[in-house]
């Protein structure tokens, strides 16, 4: 049986039903970042200032390409999770919802662009 009053059911307020899932997912992506960041940053920083052909050669290596793909996907997920918490904490008006949606669109587009670019380099070189 439900202990909720009829009025509470009608207004639909109450638990967000997500529990601590959001918090937990953020820790999981943080652990992934802890592993991926050092693996990504060294080939990337070495390629900076290099030749166009050198970059093609580096990222057509399966290991570098897969790490770069995993990094880009995870970092944008982690960025969105972080931005959402920051926005929820500091922006209490309707603007907060607008900002969270904007952050989500920005992070999705960023991840998609990065993945497309890395795959194109990996497959065309």
């Amino acid at each position: 049986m439900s202990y909720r009053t009829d009025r509470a059911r009608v207004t639909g307020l109450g638990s967000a039903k997500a529990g601590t899932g959001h918090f937990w997912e953020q820790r999981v992506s943080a652990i992934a970042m802890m592993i991926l960041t050092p693996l990504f940053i060294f080939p990337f920083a070495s390629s900076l200032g290099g030749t166009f052909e050198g970059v093609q050669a580096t990222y057509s290596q399966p290991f570098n390409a897969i790490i770069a793909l995993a990094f880009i996907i995870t970092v944008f997920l982690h960025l969105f999770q972080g931005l959402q918490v920051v926005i929820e904490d500091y922006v209490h008006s309707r603007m907060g919802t607008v900002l969270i949606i904007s952050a989500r669109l920005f992070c999705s587009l960023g991840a998609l662009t990065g993945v497309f670019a890395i795959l194109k380099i990996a497959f065309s070189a």
Partner: protein
Amino acid sequence: MADANQGNRPLSPHISIYRMPLNATMSILHRATGVALAASLVLVVWWFLAAATSADCFAFIDGLMTSWFGDIVLTLSLLALWYHFTNGIRHLIWDTGSNFGQKRVMRSAMTGLTATLLLTAATIYFT
């Protein structure tokens, strides 16, 4: 109960004379670096997109990122990245419920800040 002088009571700790503890500053800096790194990430994706487009596009963004201005931006990005990295590990350890208490928090703060500088120097030196 109705105190006419309520507005003149001293507040404690008043924000203007309250010295932020190191760990509170570091906590705010964790968020600030996280948000700021979004801008660095745009550069990274732009760089990959240019490398997937043409040699000319790549030369433009790569030149921008290795110019003196790019060097400043990327060095600050590296500091932010490794700070967020080491401080994130401190947060993950706290999430397990351990390493609390003034002395241990202070010690991990110092370890984290030292590691930030070392990792930044190592990234610049070895790449």
